[in-house]
């Protein structure tokens, strides 16, 4: 299995704090890879470095062999790496439909002048993209919310719309930062279902940060564990669960042989 994304020896500090230290992870194409770890372990920092919001002090990040370490977020999005945010970043004054159409921004071509001169062309392009967005709306079962401003939606639905906007990019890699944070059990199950379906239906590689250990162990192909900015374990969920270093990081010094499920 070849790696679609290689994170090689990456470090990043903020002021005097080493948020991430020499972390290396290869993300296999088409898999669901979870990054877990206690609060402050550096998980979101890793995600931010992949998506270009932060740049590593040392190390390299390669997407399909191309160095993307120092690209801007907008350039990385053009390479079809999409993401969601821990605290939801939607265009709250705009409708669900507009949010999803904006997700396809980089896939559309018409510029300022051309959209005035070749009005028809721009409209045709719009229609083609609208079709894909409608498919996603069906997929996420948000048909009745099309015209609603996202700011007026309930929390769980906003998370779902944000996933939809990321999917609208037709991503090669989907980065999800706590997609189930703050959700109730039913919403969590729905979201887990969507994530699995995306992975199965479109073969999208998914990198997931999540605190709910039950979900992580259920849906991930592989798990990497960070603690205090260091990678302390990596492997299949079953291997990671019994890894002594992981148990220690989560539970402190104890004799328990397994991280509690759920």
């Amino acid at each position, binding site marked *: 299995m070849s790696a679609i994304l290689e994170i090689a020896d990456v470090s990043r500090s903020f002021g005097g704090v080493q948020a991430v230290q020499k972390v290396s992870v290869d993300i296999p194409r088409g898999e669901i890879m979870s990054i877990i770890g206690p609060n402050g372990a550096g998980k979101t920092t890793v995600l931010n470095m992949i*998506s270009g*919001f932060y740049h590593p002090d040392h190390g390299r990040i390669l997407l399909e062999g191309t160095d993307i370490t120092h690209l*801007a*977020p*907008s*350039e990385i*999005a*053009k390479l079809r790496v*999409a*993401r969601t*945010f821990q605290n939801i*970043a*939607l*265009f*709250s*004054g*705009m409708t669900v439909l*507009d949010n999803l*159409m*904006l*997700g396809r*921004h*980089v896939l*559309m071509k*018409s*510029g*300022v002048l051309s*959209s*005035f001169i070749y009005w028809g062309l*721009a409209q045709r392009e*719009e229609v083609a993209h609208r079709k894909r967005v409608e498919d996603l709306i069906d997929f996420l079962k948000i048909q009745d919310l099309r015209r609603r401003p996202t*700011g*007026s939606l309930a929390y769980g639905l906003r998370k779902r719309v944000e996933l939809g*906007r*990321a999917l*609208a*990019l037709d991503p090669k890699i989907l980065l999800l930062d706590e997609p189930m944070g703050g959700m109730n059990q039913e919403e969590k199950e729905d979201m887990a279902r969507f994530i699995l379906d995306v992975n199965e239906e479109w073969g999208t590689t998914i990198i997931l940060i999540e605190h709910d250990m039950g979900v992580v162990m259920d849906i991930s192909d592989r798990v990497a564990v960070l603690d205090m900015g260091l990678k302390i374990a990596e492997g299949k969920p079953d291997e990671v669960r019994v890894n002594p270093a992981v148990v220690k990081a989560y539970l402190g010094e104890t004799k328990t042989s397994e991280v509690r499920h759920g």
Partner: protein
Amino acid sequence: MSVFQQVLIGPLKDIGSNPAFFGEVVIGGILAGMLYSLVALGFVLIFKASGVFNFAQGVMVLFAALTLVGLIERGAGVWVALAATALVMIVLAFAIERAVLRPLVNQPQIILFMATIGLNFFLEGFGEMLWGANVKKLDVGIPDRSFMAAGMQINQLELSAGGIAAILVVVLAIFFQKTRIGRALRAVADDHEAALSIGIPLKTIWVVVWSVAGLVAIVAGIMWGAKSGVQFSLSLIALKALPVLILGGFESVPGAIVGGLIIGVGEKIGEVYWGPLVGGAIENWFAYVLALAFLLIRPQGLFGEKIIERV
């Protein structure tokens, strides 16, 4: 005659007795209002896209007009001068993004606001240095003549100015609502982080909005300059744009237009019909009092996005 009659009945009687004159007053108000609208429009564009309250918008109008006049005075044809001025405003947009906005990215809004105040003084000084401080007559080839229609005297220059402003507004509205870049602009206005994550480059967007604001400033500069000459007091119309923004809402393009018209027409009618009762000068304070009333009753403005707070 009682006070009530004096204030309410008298002026209305005057209006009724000479409707053609009233029409002239309203048209005059609309044309003045369009200028306020144009300046306010520049504010709104930049505020929407970058959250920056651009204090320098008024000076940008002046700077554009100065550049245009300066070029025409030095023998350039009107169209050449116009194209060159447009180019200057676009270069200015690039320079502002590079020298002011980019170094201050992620700073609190008040810092960016202060930076635009600095920009204001810089542009004022720079314009004066380049083109001199004298009052200049701007002649773009539209005759300053009047004609009669339906018993009203209408100025040809003002009429063309109004027409141009109206076209500009329609084009901008289409641009914002219907094009891909317009939608990207609205997205950036809504949430920077989210916009970046879907591949909208902030720097490009900033250059685009500052350029558009610069082009709007040229139109405003031409209209105002042709009417009352290009002079440094031009930058003060920025102060009139402020109540327009409060009235229309800081983030609304139609709000800027309607707000400008209401203030333009309102202050003219107030001045002509009610002015004599209080010794005149209503024109000077009408906009601000109206804005104050709006702040108390409807702080988001006529078209502003409703302020929703989630707890």
